[in-house]
């Protein structure tokens, strides 16, 4: 039957070619529009993620509370081991350490005396390790205005705005003045290897990018980092997945580290008691846990308000703690608004497209009014005619949708890889403090593989079904009269 209908459709191009073309075009448009909107919103989030939040960010609990102050004295320690564990536990993400620090940048004259000085916000990023994707996600090769990428520990990239302001040339040595991880005064010389312009308004006005190893040496942060940033391999932010991962990490890994640190503290405190070494290891463990649980149950950790001098400093504040992108300052609202905007815009677009295709199905049904009358007059039952029309609609819808999805995905993928450059428009907004991407990329997501079937097949079939209902209203006695006219 399907073969018969398919051959019929192929032979009568007026019934197949135009509808398939319309469905193909419409589905292509749906796929690309939704893919582009998803990509555009992801780009907006990605820019913030790259600079500030990551898709996931691991910091100490104490750092998370005071993150606005960039408190590197509360940084993560033993970072290599932490990253190794994260890579094993969460292989869908790639993880990279980051040091964020601020201070003054001092530019010397030929006698070594201060020529110019200005505030600087610096990022210690893993530029130099071979598997690092930081250069790629920062899009630094494209953002480089002059000079070259850092090749050594002490090389630095500074923003072209700051270079102009402080009159810094490529190859010059500049001194960073700031504080080490221990809050000690520090000065460190960086060689300016290049200048960059992220083309994101005022975001990079005072920005300096150095390799992680240089930042570690300057700030005395051996195997330490302000944060570990995690990104999905596709760089696409899936909020649901990110939140689930963060919750899992904090409830299991992080909480167990807190417990371990508290138990270590309890054991150390109890070990000063007389006779501690006289009791068995097992009893020591029981007493240790009892003390920790007691302090926790009575809310005695870091609770000077209630407990005054009896409040116990919580060693757990230095345990790693994960934050999803939405946990950043007001980012949750932004993620929600983005999601809602996408749903509303996508929904409206889908409805419009469905009406168009529904209408096409309806028109197709009506256009074949005479043919259906003839078939009924020749003895075909109403049910047979109705079912054959629907089957034809399914075949046309499926063909158009499959072709449309294929073309739509191909175009979306092309724009995902190459993007559409809006640099000039964004440059015009350069006074704005908003972090804006200047090239918009589309994003191929799993839902694009099936979303075209809603308008392509469903709307076409529904339209045909509605039009086909007229078959059942046809009076057999009237058929020849109608055919005469």
């Amino acid at each position, binding site marked *: 039957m399907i073969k018969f209908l398919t051959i019929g459709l192929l032979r009568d191009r007026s019934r197949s070619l135009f509808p398939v073309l319309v469905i193909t075009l419409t589905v292509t448009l749906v796929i690309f529009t939704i893919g582009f909107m998803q990509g555009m919103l992801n780009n907006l989030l990605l820019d913030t993620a790259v600079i500030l939040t990551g898709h996931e960010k691991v910091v100490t609990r104490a750092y998370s509370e005071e993150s606005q102050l960039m408190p590197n*004295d509360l940084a993560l320690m033993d970072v290599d081991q932490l990253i190794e564990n994260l890579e094993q536990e969460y292989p869908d993400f790639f993880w990279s350490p980051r040091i964020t620090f601020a201070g003054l940048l001092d530019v010397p004259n030929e006698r070594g005396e201060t020529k110019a000085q200005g505030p600087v916000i610096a990022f210690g990023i893993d530029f130099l390790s071979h598997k690092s994707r930081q250069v790629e996600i920062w899009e630094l090769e494209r953002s480089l205005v002059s000079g070259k990428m850092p090749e050594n520990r002490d090389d630095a990239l500074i923003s072209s705005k700051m270079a102009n302001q402080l009159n810094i040339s490529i190859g010059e040595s500049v*001194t960073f*003045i700031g504080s*080490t991880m*221990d*809050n000690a*005064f520090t000065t460190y010389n960086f060689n300016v290897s290049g200048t960059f312009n992220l083309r994101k308004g005022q975001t990079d006005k005072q920005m300096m990018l150095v390799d992680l190893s240089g930042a570690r040496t300057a700030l005395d942060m051996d195997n330490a980092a302000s944060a570990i940033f995690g990104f999905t391999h596709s760089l696409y932010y899936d909020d649901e997945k990110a939140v689930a991962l963060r919750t899992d990490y904090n409830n299991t890994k992080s909480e167990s580290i807190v417990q371990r640190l508290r138990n270590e503290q309890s054991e150390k405190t109890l070990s000063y008691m007389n006779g501690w070494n006289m009791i068995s290891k097992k009893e020591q463990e029981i007493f240790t846990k009892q003390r920790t649980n007691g302090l926790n149950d009575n809310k005695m950790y870091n609770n000077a308000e209630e407990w005054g001098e009896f409040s116990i400093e919580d060693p757990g504040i230095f345990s790693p703690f994960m934050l999803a992108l939405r946990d950043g300052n007001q980012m949750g609202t932004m993620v929600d608004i983005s999601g809602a905007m996408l749903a509303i815009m996508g929904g409206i677009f889908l409805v419009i497209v469905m009406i168009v295709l529904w209408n096409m199905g309806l028109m197709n049904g009506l256009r074949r009014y005479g043919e259906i009358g003839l078939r009924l007059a020749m003895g075909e039952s109403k049910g047979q005619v109705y079912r054959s029309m629907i089957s034809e609609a399914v075949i046309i819808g499926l063909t158009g949708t499959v072709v449309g999805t294929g073309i739509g995905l191909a175009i979306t993928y092309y724009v995902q890889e190459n993007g559409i450059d809006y640099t000039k428009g964004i440059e015009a907004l350069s006074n704005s403090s908003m972090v804006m991407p200047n090239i918009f990329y589309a994003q191929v997501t799993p839902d694009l593989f099936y979303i075209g079937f809603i308008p392509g097949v469903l709307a076409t079939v529904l339209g045909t079904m509605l039009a086909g209902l007229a078959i059942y209203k046809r009076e057999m006695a009237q058929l020849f009269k109608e055919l005469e006219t």
Partner: protein
Amino acid sequence: MIKILIFILSFTFLNGQSDDMSVQDIIQAMDDNLNAKSRILTSKMIVHGRRSSRTIEFKNWVVGIDQAFTEYLFPPREAGTKMLKLGDKLWTYSPQTDRVIQISGHMLRQSVMGSDMSYNDMMEDRPLIELYKSTLEGSVEIDGRDHWIILLEAKVKGLPYPRRRAWVDKEYLLPMKEELYAKSGKLLKTSTMSGVRKVQGRWFPSQFIYKDELKRNSKGTEWIIDEIAFDIDIPDSRFSKALLRK
């Protein structure tokens, strides 16, 4: 009986003499104890951080209130770092960068080597009597020793601490405890001193504890004076910028 009466009278007189000191006299005596024509001291600072404690050793050469030179001796990362204060200017030299950098403006409010002391705290050597007008608020006994409570309010502009309250030991004439306030009345820092001993005829503490009250969970910084000598001739060459690099 007469002997007893004389003893009681003389005790009352002596005790009264101390209490009869004007508040200006007390501040002057404090300044005399704490300041000298010159001094050389070797000391260490124990900075109690939230994770661990660090010890920093340094040597100071000070002449009057305008000239000071500091050389850091320990730990190895800080060793060789030098600071020079001339009047209201402060330079620092770090061997890692081989740069002499002037510390000015808001940087003076930054912590010295991660301690609870700022560069401003280190710079401010002018006698209190020149900077503050003082009011005696009362007396109090702390650890069995009598203290005056004195409120000091700035009479010159631009001081890092426009108000301070001092608990001055009546015998040592030293501010054993101080609270340093901002203009708004917010408590910025507290300091205590202990281990008072007589050094070249003056009472001088051997240990200070500074605490930055704005730092959450600050455990304070101990400053322990290992050696101190007053009124020693220090050549002017000690306070030259050229010496920073040597």
